[in-house]
């Protein structure tokens, strides 16, 4: 079983919502669509579901061309950010409703409702109405309705965005488990990099209507193909710095440089863009690390970590430091960066050399 998109596009008037996209999702995989608002996540999902017909390109389901087939005739289930349940029905009837439409026997319905309710931890709530449940339980009810259909394709559009942080944390742990038990193709849209990492599976990063990269989630995170992907898949945002290559060295400014090793060694001299993640910036001196002078703009302490926003030669960097560091606004701080944690992008944004640590991982 597989869903295959071949050169699909979505156009509305003069606006291109989705540029030509090829994507193949295999049976039994979790696929995250990661990108900011308006990057095309929902548009892409609607094309996958058959809710919209692509302007160009084809959609294949198990090798069969389903482009233009109505969503009702496809085995698709969708869950939205807003929990959608029937308020006048009990939780039991809500979960049973998709099966009643397709003429499943009463005993079979009962068995599947109870099985799914158990999986979603809703068994004690089966007789209640959705509005008597907490937000998390309401969304679990909506998820249960999607799962019980036994659809081959389950599309989840930011399903946890309206939930409390802690409930989100709990459901994020549960969803991969539920997904593993179902065997369907899951597609999960989110704006949050951390959510993508926790869900695992594969990730497609989206930016302005384009899939910039698709692959196993940790791989996309550690080996982004371009600066845009790296930016989308980094929270706090990735830090950037203009560098230049001269002979065997990469010059980072302030007299700081690193040996141009591996793939970098064969690059032509010239200007490049260096990128590094906030958690790789340190304030303790470290052997082999480059040192930069910065000024503290804002410090945010979470208890376990400190986010320090730094001004460096006209750029704003973020450092995510372990522990608590009371860095005052306006203070001058030296920060340290191990060249092994630096990604090098070309001036067009394409990755020319991944960070050495990621190559080793």
């Amino acid at each position, binding site marked *: 079983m597989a869903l295959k998109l071949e050169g699909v596009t979505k156009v509305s008037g003069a606006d291109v919502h989705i540029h030509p996209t090829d994507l193949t999702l295999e049976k039994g995989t979790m696929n995250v669509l990661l990108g*900011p608002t308006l990057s095309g996540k929902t548009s892409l999902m609607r094309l996958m579901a058959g809710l919209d017909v692509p302007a160009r390109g084809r959609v294949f389901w198990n090798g069969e061309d389903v482009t233009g087939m109505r969503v009702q005739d496809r085995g698709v289930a969708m869950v939205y950010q807003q929990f959608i349940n029937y308020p006048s029905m009990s939780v039991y009837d809500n979960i049973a409703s998709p099966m009643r439409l397709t003429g499943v026997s009463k005993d079979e319905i009962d068995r599947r409702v109870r099985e799914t309710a158990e999986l979603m931890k809703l068994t004690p709530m089966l007789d209640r109405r959705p509005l008597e449940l907490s*937000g998390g339980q309401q969304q679990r009810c909506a998820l249960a309705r999607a799962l019980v259909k036994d659809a081959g394709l389950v599309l989840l559009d930011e399903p946890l965005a309206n939930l409390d942080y*802690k409930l989100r*944390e709990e459901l994020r742990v549960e969803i991969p488990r539920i997904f593993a038990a179902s065997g369907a193709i899951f597609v999960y849209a989110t704006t949050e*990099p*951390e959510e993508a990492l*926790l869900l695992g599976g594969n990730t497609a990063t989206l930016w302005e209507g384009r899939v910039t990269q698709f692959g196993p989630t940790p791989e996309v995170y550690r080996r982004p193909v371009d600066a845009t992907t790296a930016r989308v898949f980094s*929270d706090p945002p990735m830090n950037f710095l203009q560098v230049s290559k001269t002979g065997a060295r990469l010059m980072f400014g302030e007299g700081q440089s690193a040996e141009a090793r591996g793939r970098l060694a064969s690059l032509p001299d010239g200007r490049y863009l260096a990128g590094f993640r906030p958690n790789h910036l340190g304030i303790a001196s470290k052997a082999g690390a480059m040192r930069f002078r910065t000024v503290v703009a804002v410090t945010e302490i979470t*208890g376990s970590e400190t986010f320090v926003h730094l001004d460096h030669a006209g750029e704003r960097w*973020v450092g995510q430091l372990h522990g608590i560091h009371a860095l005052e606004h306006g203070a001058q701080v030296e920060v340290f960066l191990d060249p092994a944690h630096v990604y090098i992008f070309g001036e067009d944004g394409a990755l020319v050399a991944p960070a050495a640590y990621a190559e080793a991982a």
Partner: protein
Amino acid sequence: MAQITLDNLAHSYLAKPVSNDDYALKPMNHTWADGEAYALLGPSGCGKSTLLNIISGLLQPSQGRILFGETDVTHAATAERNIAQVFQFPVVYDTMTVRENLAFPLKNRGADRAYVAERVATIAKMIGMEGELDRKARGLTADAKQKISLGRGMVREDVNALLFDEPLTVIDPQMKWELRTQLKSLHRQFGHTMIYVTHDQTEALTFADRVVVMHDGRVVQIGTPQELFERPEHTFVGYFIGSPGMNVIPARVEGRTAYIDGAEMALAHGYGALSGKVEIGVRPEYARLSDEGMPVKIRRVEDVGRHRIVRAEFFGHDINIIAGEGEEIPADRVRVSFDGAHVNVYADDWRVAPESAPGVAA
């Protein structure tokens, strides 16, 4: 700017509350300092919005008083309280330009034109919308509209307090960083009393000087991010703050030793006789996989980029351990050790103060 006093304040949505359970907000006494930034943090239903609505005047409390400075405002209308509010969803006038939207609270109060122009320019720069001042708000994205709402909330300098009700919910993660740091800079510059309601711990901890953690209609702890992280006064605070939350493990505590199902570990402090349900609490950040320590069985390892979350079974209890990005995770004979200085002891969910600290009088 004003200090805010909650004097024996409580609220029930029922006409005749009988038991404590009937109160959405249980009786509380607090004084919040002038010019500080507070966050009200808790899950839905904890009472944080009820409390905010009482402070803003949208709701009259069933009992007690609320003071701004020395003035009793318990029964004053919202408009009389001289506060600015920003809500979860943008409140923007679509037919007005961005400039008119930002200027509205000032014009409404008859501020002079030069002052209005200057403030609007300052705020527009802060929210990064200088280039869009003359376009109509209609058709802007939710992000942009919420930035206008935030800007409008901050345009007046003479307010008693600035109240924010989950203002960043509709904002993308990357933009959240920007707006939050701008709010913080603004607070540092102008020293407004700010109250920020959220269920998101990162937002609360990074924004506020002090975080007010609410649970079940009560304030369970008011503290700095560091205090909430290192010394949660209640197991709920341990659970709610931190991602994942604190590990809470049933134990028997005698003096300076904790006994967990036969295993024992030394504590950094001594404790007197404890009664009720006794547990130790240790955050995943203070648990380490190691060669020595107590046996643990690894269930699953989740890679979240900057570190990994190890989900493990420890004497029949689920615990979480944080492992570094490059750290090796042993395959067999796995053991865990806890950083004794960061183990807290709880009796019936409340933290027990130790009797003695090493080298320091308790």
